[in-house]
């Protein structure tokens, strides 16, 4: 079985994150970049299946040159090979572009199953797995807290806002996992030395036969028009309770028609 794991590098969440007011893109210059924890968990799901059955695990990312470090990290954890889609034309790509490029790369590699995180810590959109599934015309089983992979079928439990579902689909399919899925293994030094010898391929858009103008020209795009730092909320009324504050609060709520 051939499993492709989608991984992503995100800014380390120490301190505050920032947007470039000129482009609206995430200002990636501020903190260090690390592999997203949810990517680690997705890889863990694939590696456990590999441990049991010997499946082939390929990690795939789309991102700047520095994202190669994240791929090496995944190889050190135990992935067999890595694919890096790297192209200047992809700077600032939105979910529409990202999903079609990822789908093209997945098709390029061939797959039985794709595993991704349910949402990244920086974008938090949570739509990429479903969009890639639509491009590939395969089912998506997303937000799974538990995943069971068999020869030609995958099933799991899915957490939604309204409860828990058990879901199943025949392969090929796309799965996304949540924070509830098991912790990733700790990469080892031996694994790291082995990783240095594993293949890491870099693909450009032309390798994937994508011409940004013709491929994306006819689809809708969401373009950021303004980015404003929300004015810090200013403190309003602040009173110290001298015995009547509870009533004053009720009056405040009544005046605001919240009652």
């Amino acid at each position: 079985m051939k499993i492709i794991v989608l991984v992503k590098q995100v800014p380390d969440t120490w301190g505050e994150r920032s947007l470039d007011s000129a482009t609206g893109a995430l200002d990636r210059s501020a903190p260090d970049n690390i592999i997203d924890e949810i990517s680690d968990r997705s890889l863990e799901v694939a590696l456990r299946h590999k441990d049991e059955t010997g499946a082939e695990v390929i990690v795939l990312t789309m991102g700047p040159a520095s994202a190669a470090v994240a791929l090496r990290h995944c190889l050190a954890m135990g992935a067999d090979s890595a694919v890096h889609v790297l192209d200047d034309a992809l700077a600032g790509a939105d979910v529409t572009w990202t999903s079609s490029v990822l789908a093209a790369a997945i098709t390029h590699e061939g797959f039985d199953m794709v595993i991704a995180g349910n949402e990244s810590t920086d974008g938090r959109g949570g739509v990429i797995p479903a969009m890639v599934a639509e491009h590939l015309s395969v089912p998506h089983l997303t937000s799974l807290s538990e995943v069971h992979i068999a020869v030609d079928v995958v099933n799991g439990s899915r957490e939604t806002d309204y409860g828990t579902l058990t879901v199943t689909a025949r392969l090929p399919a796309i799965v996304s996992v949540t924070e509830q899925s098991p912790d990733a293994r700790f990469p080892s030094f031996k694994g790291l030395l082995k990783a240095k010898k594993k293949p890491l391929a870099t693909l450009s858009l032309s390798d994937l036969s994508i011409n940004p103008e013709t491929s994306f020209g006819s689809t809708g795009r969401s373009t950021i028009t303004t980015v404003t730092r929300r004015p810090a909320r200013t403190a309003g009324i602040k009173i110290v309770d001298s015995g009547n504050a509870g009533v004053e609060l009720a009056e405040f709520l009544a005046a605001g028609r919240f009652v």
Partner: protein
Amino acid sequence: MSTALTLIEVSPSGEIRGSAKMLLAAATRLGTPVAVLSTTPGDHSEHVKQLGDLGAHHVFIAESTQTDSLLATPAVESLAAAFSHFETSAAVLVTNSVEGREIAGRLAVRIGGGLTIDAIDITLVNDRVVARNSVFGGAFDVESSIHGGPAVITLRQGSIDEEVTAHTPDLITITLSLTSVAAATITSRTEAPTDSGRPDLRGAATVVSGGRGVGSKEDFLLVEQLADALGAAVGASRAAVDAGYITHSLQVGQTGTIVSPQLYIALGISGAIQHLAGMQTAKVIVAVNKDPDAPIFDFTDFGIVGDIFTVIPQTIEALHRFRH
């Protein structure tokens, strides 16, 4: 005028979920509002009337016996069918939930639309849909416009709250064929317990939250009492969840639920940045805390330095008096 499609959510027991009001109000701003219902075959006259009361001009019902057993795809197919039926749809609005986002994502790919996720406001500017998002815990506002294709937008629950005029809607009913679609099958379903009778945290217009300052699991009752007096949802800070006062599913904050209510009341919550990230887009914020230096006071419209156990019972009593 072009149409704006909304995906109406229906609970497994057949009731229209609360998000319908927000979606139809938002759609009214963009064009002629259409309610799209993906459901199993049956009598939907009650739904149609209800959606008309919420402002729908057209109700588009896509029926299939498999609707309940397939994941997300029936809704995608229903919206796609409605999209080709109403040739001039400018926008498709879906609730921002796990499932809503995925439906929107697949649909955007299907119809070549541009996608905006988790918008907190939308408007029409020069015939173009402009969506506003609040990112990084409310620190930034981002406005984006969608061009080159239809706009597919997921809206944060509770973010738009306005009354629209009721209509007697047209009804279009079609039958979907789902036999060959690529979809996962739902084999069983456990509904999240909603026995509290309180509104869902995510979409509630008012939220009352308690923090570490509440002191114990038993005393959390006070938070619930104020919530019930206001018809509000109950929330909690991470500290209160970690201390075991209340279940994790009610945690408000960066790692819990992000809420955007009209009114947010924080009781015994100091205001860690992670908590603020989950609620600071609330329209009005009220806090009661013993510590006069609690950071939350920098964000409140009305702050009370005091003991919640003396202040809140007084408030509840006064609220009852106002009612009568």
